[in-house]
């Protein structure tokens, strides 16, 4: 009996595997093998809807977003990560991320401080992860407009914190949104 057996799966969850897995993912984002193993595990346990809230509560979404962003070249990580996104990220979370980008950009234009720049970057990184399954929501909520506004404004500034990082994340989000549909293997719910 492997991990796919429902009883074994439930045993691991009861034993506290979710916080352990999310913690390991958060602390070892650049270790491809660790990220790969953790995302594959999360993809398996997220098939049970009862486990979705514990994953989200343990900080799984943030860890998932960062692990997808840091490992763009690994197909296994991208595939498993997108499967988890499809199962645990709600449309409301995507809408919130778009709004967060819009608000943070307005604030950054006014303040140009490091903390707000980080908020803008994190919102863009969030959209990179969510883009695999939520293109229509992102388009409808003005996510593309927000990304292009961010790119236009940030690239024209002389002194803005995290300029390169924000531009990179905008490019990555637009890339994910524009990806050829034949390469999208995840069936969205």
């Amino acid at each position: 009996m492997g991990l796919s057996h429902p009883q074994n799966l439930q045993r691991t969850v009861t034993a506290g595997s979710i916080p352990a897995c999310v913690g390991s993912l958060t602390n070892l984002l650049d270790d491809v093998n660790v990220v790969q193993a953790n995302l594959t595990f999360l993809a398996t346990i997220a098939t049970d809807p009862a486990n979705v809230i514990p994953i989200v509560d343990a900080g799984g979404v943030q860890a998932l977003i960062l692990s997808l962003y840091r490992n763009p070249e690994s197909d296994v990580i991208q595939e498993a990560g997108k499967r988890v996104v499809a199962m645990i990220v709600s449309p409301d979370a995507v809408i919130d991320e778009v709004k967060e980008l819009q608000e943070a950009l307005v604030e950054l234009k006014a303040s140009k401080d490091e903390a707000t720049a980080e908020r803008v970057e994190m919102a863009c990184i969030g959209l990179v992860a969510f883009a695999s399954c939520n293109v229509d929501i992102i388009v409808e909520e003005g996510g593309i407009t927000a990304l292009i506004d961010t790119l236009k404004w940030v690239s024209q500034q002389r002194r803005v914190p995290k300029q390169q990082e924000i531009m990179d994340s905008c490019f990555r989000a637009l890339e994910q949104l524009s990806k050829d549909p034949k390469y999208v293997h995840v069936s969205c719910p």
Partner: protein
Amino acid sequence: MILLSFSLLSFIHSFIHELYVLFMFANRYQDELWPVLDMEQGVQAIVAAINLHPKQKRTVRTGFRCLAAVSRIHASHEALVENGAIECVTNAMGKNAKELGVVASAISMLQGLGQRNLGGEGIVERGGIKALVKNLKGASTRLQGRDDIGEWGNPTVGMLNVITRCAKVSAFNKSKIRNAQGVDACIAAMLLFPNDDDVQRAGVRCLSELLIDREVVQAVRHLSTYMGMLFLRLSFLYLLFP
């Protein structure tokens, strides 16, 4: 028998579902995403951002990857050509010729653009071929002995594929490429990577588009003098007597 028919039915169901998903995705991407990206002048913004920061290699690379993904949407080709995406890519290829990541992303964008005739014409008209020929001819000093070719792939294959695609578009393009020393560049690339099957195949495809029969014979002699490669000779013989 029941099991067999059940598995056949489930296979048909999953096949129809995959087709449905692909169809929905294809329509959604073409119909919903591009109009918004176009309306917001997305291509212009991306190109401008790359042009404003040409020395930041990572940003240039991610920018080109983004353009490469956009170039897979066929409706975007006109905007890409008009907004200077080709010039942006060729300039960056010249400035970052040793950065394999940048070159690979740039070529990926040109490959996407070359899928349609409009993009193929744009690449030839706007100096894309000249940049590719220059890059192919200078490849000997840049690519030999590099241990990161495995990470990014040999960019020579992509360059040859772009030239082939552009040559297929029209006779005018073909003559332009020949005048820009495309044939020489192609042969130089093949000589540089005699053991790389992908380069050899891409080179043969490229030469078959560019050469007329008399030149094919000369090219075979030229290559045979240097290498005596059976594969190449056979490939050219196949081209002459298919």
